[in-house]
């Protein structure tokens, strides 16, 4: 591993922590002394939350940093681009008569969830008003008070990014997560049902998940379980994957499935979409570091995992079927990006490579199994995001480097690592995965049941035959009479 020399040894995943440490150790010159000082500091940091009863005791208040905040703003723009990217990725797979509807299921959420997030979503995920480890509060509705009067106030002690940039960044995640589920439901779900499902799912499933993992809640590093999820392996990919699995089971297969299955109508769209997703994932994972100085690692692990996964998927195809496919390359890359998401800032390069390759292999198997049992998760939303997110989350527990899980930012998780090593963290992650499966599964089922009872889930068989572009939107993607 490439170490940048800093006062007191190697770099940590959070540059703000490095900066704090550099300052604290500036006067200590002897290398040995410095090492002892760091050990003492780490020991103290681990003990402080236990003694004070508040984990935040170890974090000092930092002024807002321009570069770090800029990373968040850039990251937000990158993550936003993933949603139209996903629309192209999914749109390429469907029939020509359903491509606009498929793309709208993602694109439309940039409108719907974009508003929901500001009005109430952020507050439910990151406010502390309800004093609950499962749900936030209502105090920051309309982003009331977020970032102070001028929008430049820091997020919290120990963070040098502005709270407003954080709220924006998190909003982009909230948009793409329900969009991922659409891959399981394309070509048959009623658009009105999708509207209500996405709205309710975002509020009652996504926001509690974000709270539990990232908002200091039950599953996360400040809570009971102590699982670490760098950029959303659990909150985004397991949640979307399980949502897809359950909703496929409830909504049912497309009419005439599996005989009616058709090859993708536009493979270049799939490659374009996968390319945009990869590009956007630099924001998704990279900027989740929250500090510009050390984000190089999370950018590197992200792209390395995607590369390894693309290669793995194509090599499997090459050996099994004789030809590496373009759709396989695109799918493999996305699988690798999903797999590294929970781990991006917690592992070094060899582990990132292993995660990418293992996720691609697991997702490949999952796609084959799905086809063999004729389960109509149409665009493999569970097989790629659910399975990839699960493998990624479990491998994060097994492979996280203790040096990259500092105790002041991840008290419970660092304690687990210190006492029981990666085995214990793996167990914690198994628990977090199971709880997420249960919560998301039940939540999704209840919401679908309500939406189904009120507006109906599916279009009629005749409408399905006609094509949803015209039925739902009154448009066609390709004019059959272009002169």
């Amino acid at each position, binding site marked *: 591993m490439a170490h940048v020399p800093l006062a007191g040894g190697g770099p940590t995943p959070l540059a703000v922590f490095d900066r704090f440490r550099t300052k604290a150790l500036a006067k200590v010159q002897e290398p040995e002394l410095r090492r002892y000082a760091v050990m003492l500091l780490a020991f103290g940091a681990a003990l402080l939350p236990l003694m004070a009863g508040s984990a935040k005791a170890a974090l000092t208040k930092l002024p807002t940093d321009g570069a770090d905040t800029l990373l968040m703003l850039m990251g937000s723009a990158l993550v936003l681009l993933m949603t139209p990217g996903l629309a192209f990725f999914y749109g390429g797979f469907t029939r020509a008569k359903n491509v606009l509807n498929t793309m709208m299921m993602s694109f439309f959420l940039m409108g719907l969830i974009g508003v929901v997030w500001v009005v109430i979503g952020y507050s439910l995920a990151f406010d502390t008003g309800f004093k609950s480890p499962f749900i936030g509060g209502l105090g920051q509705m309309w982003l009331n008070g977020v970032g102070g009067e001028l929008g430049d106030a820091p997020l919290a002690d120990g963070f040098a990014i502005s709270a407003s940039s954080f709220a924006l960044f998190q909003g982009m995640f909230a948009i793409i997560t329900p969009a991922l589920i659409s891959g399981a439901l394309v070509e048959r779900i009623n658009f009105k049902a999708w509207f209500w499902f996405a709205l309710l799912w975002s509020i009652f499933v996504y926001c509690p998940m974000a709270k539990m993992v990232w908002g200091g809640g039950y599953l996360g590093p400040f809570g009971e379980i102590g699982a670490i999820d760098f950029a959303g392996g659990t909150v985004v990919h397991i949640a979307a994957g399980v949502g897809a699995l359950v909703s496929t089971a409830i909504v049912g297969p497309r009419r005439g499935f599996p005989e009616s*299955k*058709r*090859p*993708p109508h536009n493979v270049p769209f799939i490659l374009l979409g996968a390319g945009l997703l990869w590009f956007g994932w630099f924001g998704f994972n990279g900027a989740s570091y929250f500090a510009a100085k050390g984000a190089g690692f999370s950018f590197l692990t992200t792209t390395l995992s995607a590369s390894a996964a693309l290669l793995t998927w194509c090599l499997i*195809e090459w050996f*099994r*079927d004789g*030809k590496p*496919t373009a*759709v*396989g390359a695109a*799918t493999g890359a996305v699988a690798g990006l999903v797999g590294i998401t929970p781990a991006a800032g917690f592992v070094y390069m060899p582990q990132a490579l292993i995660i990418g390759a293992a996720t691609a292999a697991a997702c*490949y198997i999952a*796609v*084959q199994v799905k*086809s063999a049992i004729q389960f109509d998760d149409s665009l*493999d939303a569970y097989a790629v995001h659910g399975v990839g997110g699960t493998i990624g989350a479990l491998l994060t527990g097994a492979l996280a480097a203790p040096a990259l899980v500092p105790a002041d930012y991840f008290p419970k998780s660092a304690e687990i690592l210190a006492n029981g090593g990666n085995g214990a963290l793996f167990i914690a992650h198994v628990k977090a995965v199971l709880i997420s499966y249960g919560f998301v599964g039940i939540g999704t089922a209840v919401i679908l049941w309500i939406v189904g009872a009120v507006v109906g889930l599916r279009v009629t068989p005749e409408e399905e035959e006609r094509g949803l572009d015209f039925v739902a939107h009154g448009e066609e993607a390709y004019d059959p009479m272009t002169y």
Partner: protein
Amino acid sequence: MKQITAVVRPSKVDAIKSALVAIDVVGMTIHDVRGFGRQKGQVERYRGNEFTVEFLSKIKITTVVTDDKVDAAISAISEAARTGEIGDGKIFVTPVEQVVRIRTGDRGESAI
């Protein structure tokens, strides 16, 4: 007068056009069509799932020639379109009763 209808590989259209022009057959219409013959389509794989694509893209060329040029046109098309593999296509010859040039009102062979 005979109508010659050839269903051929899309990649051979330019060569066929040049071959016909070389023997003084000027004027033809082409259509994008899909179909299958003995070839019975092809197998494609996406994410490991196999699909049989029964109808493959072909180009249908239609042209009308005078009786004395029929054999020359058939051999020109055949030579230009042949690869020797299954899927090279077919040529159909049918009689034509009347031809009218819309601009001048000419009829019969002079209208071809």
